[in-house]
């Protein structure tokens, strides 16, 4: 392909090829300071025109690669950075067979990991980003990788993708140089990427033992409620893109995780009370 770039994010290396220079230039700026990628990449992502003439006329970026979804619609070239991010997500969601992939944010403290998972809009991404600036190590805002052999969590600290209101929350917290360009009018509203801090990048190869699972929910009065183990198990299978395809190895890893980790559902009205609540629950779990 005309332009290419490799990225190392936690244990996963990506090779990204593009017909246009712009998406990869933006990606290189956003991922400045990440470690040198492995020469052998886990996944190939391709950003290319849907058809040959669409390279020039109303250019639109189709997201292709080792694994593809048939119905995926192309995106505007102006949102090429987002397309690259989505291309990497897609490879993970469809092709990751090495780790149990949980759609969850995770942060670490003292070698132990907190897993935050929940439905879309629950605010786990923002919460993890915020914790990452307030004494925790950000392991990832979107995917948590559970090692099938030793049950530890591996970090996958890609750029945090902030949406709409969350953008302002983090702009108050973090220096401007760590942000990508603001992308308005994407199919999911406004998006701005945030590079994790140096501590998260330096420690990205360090795994952590899962110690607490929380199911946060934004927009409700503060409340904590226990979640039964069977429900935690069920929810985590639904949060995993590869649980079923891992077979017995996935079953072993997930039942062990649920058995070993306390868990709770937490409702929160705003991010500051969420941080406070997380600290309290973390102390109780310790």
């Amino acid at each position, binding site marked *: 392909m005309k332009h290419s770039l490799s990225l190392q994010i936690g244990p996963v290396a990506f090779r990204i090829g593009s017909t246009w220079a712009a998406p990869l230039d933006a990606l290189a700026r956003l991922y400045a300071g990440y470690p040198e990628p492995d020469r052998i990449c886990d996944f190939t992502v391709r950003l290319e025109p849907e058809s040959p003439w669409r390279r020039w006329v109303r250019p639109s970026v189709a997201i292709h690669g080792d694994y593809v979804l048939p119905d995926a619609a192309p995106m505007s070239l102006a949102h090429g950075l987002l397309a690259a991010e989505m291309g990497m997500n897609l490879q993970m969601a469809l092709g990751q067979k090495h780790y149990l992939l949980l759609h969850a944010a995770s942060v670490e403290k003292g070698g132990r990991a907190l897993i935050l998972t929940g439905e879309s809009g629950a605010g786990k991404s923002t919460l993890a980003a915020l914790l990452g600036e307030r004494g925790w190590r950000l392991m990832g805002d979107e995917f948590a990788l559970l090692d099938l052999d030793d049950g530890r969590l591996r970090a996958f600290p890609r750029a945090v993708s902030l949406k709409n209101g969350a953008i302002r929350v983090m702009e108050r917290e973090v220096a401007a140089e760590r942000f990508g360009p603001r992308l308005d009018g994407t199919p999911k509203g406004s998006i701005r990427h945030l590079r994790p801090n140096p501590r998260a990048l330096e420690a990205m190869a360090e795994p952590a033992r899962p110690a607490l699972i929380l199911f946060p929910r934004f927009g409700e009065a503060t409340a904590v409620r226990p979640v039964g183990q*069977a429900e935690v198990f*069920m929810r985590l299978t639904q949060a995993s893109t590869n649980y079923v395809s891992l077979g017995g190895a996935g*079953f072993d890893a997930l*039942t062990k995780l649920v*058995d070993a980790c306390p868990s709770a559902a937490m409702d929160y009205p705003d991010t500051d009370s969420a941080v406070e609540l997380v600290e309290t629950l973390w102390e109780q779990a310790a």
Partner: protein
Amino acid sequence: MTGARYIADPEECVQSVALDGLSVLFHRPSGMTHIVAPPAPQILEALRMGPADAGEILARMRAWYDLEGDEAADAIEARLEELEAAGLVSRP
């Protein structure tokens, strides 16, 4: 009444973990995970003694448990159909 007879896979085909009163089963032949509630695990256990219809299963379970519930045979039939659809029991 004698209904259809069923068989269950041998014990080593199913890996089971108990989580708050429910059983999470990994069924090796299918690679599928099922979460099952009583009396389904007990029916599987009863079937491991050999092929049986609903009446015989009920008799085996009575030897182990104090059973509660009306229309016991109907309830067992309904569970067997569910277990059959999930592939956990089959007709010989």
